[in-house]
């Protein structure tokens, strides 16, 4: 197992390099001149040229890439010109907020989605299945930002149960209960779509598994139906569900953009959108690389979990 994890980690290196190439190329395609963007349109040509040289933009593209990559590997993501601070500091400051939000949403979507899918499949075409299917269709069709806004209207404005925005209260607060109160609505709003997707695919995977011969064997042994469903069938279905969870982890992490804006959550997503609107290229580059690297990490976790779960996979 340890060897397999190592092998999987090593195989992630070319993917990560590929990601940096794609991000770099996308950003290099931006029309216009970053130096002009920084200095404004009244800058003199000499100043623009000097800044270009200072930023290394007069080098050929491939050299720019390797310089950028080299800095990246040393933890230097460059400097955000709009915020005038190192990109990495800015990202790290905000990343924990995003991780708390996305991590909670992911847990919600994994647990609730799988449970709903299993209950749905076990009672196929029954009342529970119909109710879950209906809720799931609603869930995967609602834009998360609209759902978030409606939740604010209902739970923050009308009922006054939960705070409408931010991560901590300004006065007092700052402790865990305060965080949970602020986290509840954004996490649920972010989790809804992913939960629907997980529920849907879990139901399908369970239906496939429940028709297998080994389920009949378990029943013939006298295993209780509850254990047949939640043990034998779910264990086998997990092999198909886990890759979906990996995809949803990435979805939740990047889908946090909308929720962070609606609930004014101080995360990376909001920072990215602002950076895009301000054309703060190094900040966008850094944010995208880091989120994509996380996503690659999720995929490794998925593969390792898969290998741990299914002994037939050669490790």
């Amino acid at each position, binding site marked *: 197992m340890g060897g397999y994890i190592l092998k999987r980690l090593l195989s992630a290196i070319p*993917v990560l390099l590929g990601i940096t190439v794609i991000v770099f190329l996308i950003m290099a395609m931006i029309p216009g001149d970053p130096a002009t963007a920084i200095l404004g349109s009244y800058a003199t040509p000499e100043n623009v040229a000097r800044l270009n040289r200072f930023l290394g933009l007069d080098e050929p593209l491939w050299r720019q890439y390797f310089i950028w990559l080299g800095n990246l590997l040393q933890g230097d993501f460059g400097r955000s010109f709009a915020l005038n601070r190192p990109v990495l500091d800015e990202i790290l400051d905000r990343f924990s907020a995003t991780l708390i939000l996305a991590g909670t949403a992911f847990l919600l979507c994994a647990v609730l989605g799988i449970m709903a899918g299993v209950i749905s499949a076990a009672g196929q075409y029954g009342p529970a299945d119909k109710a879950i299917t209906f809720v799931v269709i609603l869930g995967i069709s609602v834009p998360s930002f609209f759902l978030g806004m409606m939740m604010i209207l209902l739970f923050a404005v009308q009922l006054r149960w939960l705070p409408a925005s931010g991560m901590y209260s300004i006065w007092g607060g700052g402790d865990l209960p305060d965080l949970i109160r602020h986290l509840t609505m954004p996490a649920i709003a972010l989790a809804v779509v992913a939960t629907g997707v997980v529920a849907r695919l879990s139901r399908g995977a369970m239906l496939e598994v429940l028709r297998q*011969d080994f389920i009949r064997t378990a029943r013939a*042994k006298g295993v209780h139906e509850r254990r047949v469903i939640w043990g034998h069938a779910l264990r086998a279905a997990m092999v198909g569900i886990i890759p979906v969870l990996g995809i949803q982890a990435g979805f939740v992490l990047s889908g946090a953009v909308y929720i962070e804006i609606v609930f004014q959550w101080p995360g990376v997503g909001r920072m990215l959108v602002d950076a895009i609107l301000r054309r703060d290229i190094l900040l966008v580059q850094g944010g*995208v690389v880091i989120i994509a690297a996380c996503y690659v990490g999720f995929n490794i976790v998925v593969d390792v979990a898969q290998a741990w779960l299914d002994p037939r996979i050669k490790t």
Partner: protein
Amino acid sequence: MSLFLRLLFRNRLAGFGAVVLGVIVLLALLTPLLPLHPPNETSTANRYLRPLSDGHLLGTDHLGRDLLSRLLWGTRLSLAVGFAAALIAGLAGAAIGVMAGYFGGRTDNVTMRGIDMLMAFPYILLALAIVAVLGPGLLNALIAVAVVNIPFFARNIRGVTVGIAHREFIDAARLAGMGHARILLTEVVPNIVPVVVIAMSTTIGWMILETAGLSFLGLGSQPPQADLGSMLGEARSALITAPHTSIVPGVMILLIVMSVNLLGDGIRDALDPRLRSGALARPMAATRVDRREVPPAKGEALLDIDALETQFQVGKRVYKAVNKVSLDLKPGECLGLIGESGSGKSVTALSVMGLVASPPGVITGGAVRLDGQDLIGAPYEVLRALRGRRVAYIFQDPLSTLHPLYRIGDQLIEAIRVHEPVSQAEAHKRAVKLLEDVQIPNAAGRVSAFPHELSGGMRQRVGIAMALANDPDIIIADEPTTALDVTVQAQILALLDELRQRRGLAILFITHDFGVVGQLCDRVAVMYGGRIVETGPTRAVLDAPAHPYTRRLIACVPELGAGRRILAAIPGLPPAVDQLPEGCAFAPRCDKAQASCKTGEIDLTGTTRKVRCLFPEVAP
């Protein structure tokens, strides 16, 4: 096509989706003709009018613009962008997928590496990055959404194309001298169109959502032009003071995406042949029972199957898989149940403990008595407590019947512990002992092996050990040796026979092989078309078969050292049990059939030997 539409509308939700989407699309198409305010006409005096106010059905927004008008124009825009993005992504993805799949080799490798790399990005992030390059704007958002969805299509289509590219008709076209372009257009593309349609119909909802999302962030449509997403984005600042400005566009997005999703699901289901046949139904914990009368108890056999009727009900069709079958089994006895595939022998065996997959299986009549207790219609908990403890099963293919992800030891331990509250350690000891009993070498080590690590014969021994776990009275063995090669088969049979002698087991042995019956069974019952056609002591039946079908079946068995006998296959096919002929089901394949064989009900007659035939080979 009409079948497709019928299936689509049988799905009520899909029909609902189609109607809602139809209305929305119609409204969007008619928008320029409707008597609406101009969507961008501002009126500062009329800011934030509530819905149902004079002249403004849905109220006005922060600039006093008519919301209904803006909603319809925005819907038009959102729909157009969503469909366009789906079309672009679908076509580009299909083109890439077809090329990669058809040409294979290096083209395939390079393309798919690139696709994998793109898929390493969460797509919202990639869309953001693309918009960052192109700059905000609706067209740029459309391009971004289309591009991030290309990998999904390319992957799907490539998979399908690879399947097609190696088929015979492609080779034939190539040999006929057709060029690549022509083969692609005339042979490959028509075959992948349904896949593209399904993929588009299931993703178009996503694309509408994604474009709305980009617009919501201010990266899509720019003012004063507004799609539904940017309407929501602009309304957000007035969420609390004028919630209707947010609710109106939000509900519209929800309605559009939901109806597209419902319709997409409906299209996918209608095109999926497995759903048509009901093959995706999951079997319930016990077979459904729907029987009108219960035959009176009689006899004192250990297991008494009495006039059992089991059917498969698929739509309007009824397959009478088991048709009034009666069998009995005494302690320590081995009864062989023999017949071709489809004769109903396995269904008979599975009916005993309610293990016939249901839906579509239904037990519609008869009784199965274990020591006088009727198991048909018994409460689930009663049935479960008897399964494995008094009546155990051995199934045909031990690779698919053992759980692939559990160690065989754990599967044995579970079999013991569901019926007996012994400790884990005690159960483990007994599991090792069971493996030794079925002559598995190195049982203590093998106990922690997974099924895929064992050979077929070893796996079947595990299956037998599992059946023996609770010292049952009856073992029902459903073709336990069919999947094994001949030498292993002989070992397994010898093992079963020895266990029977030693433990006094009664065995119901199901097979299609008279050779196996001859070795193991005291009595034999022959099944054809869901009925017993002959039964009697094995020796007597083998020596002098009474039913013409039995005679033909015995003639099929090759005998060692009797190489000059002609192996006679039985011409024709067994009958389909949803349309059984009147009279004898074997009559159409029987060389002795008379006109009288094809009318009326033919009874099973005789005493120790019974036969269902008007012109038996020997008097029973």
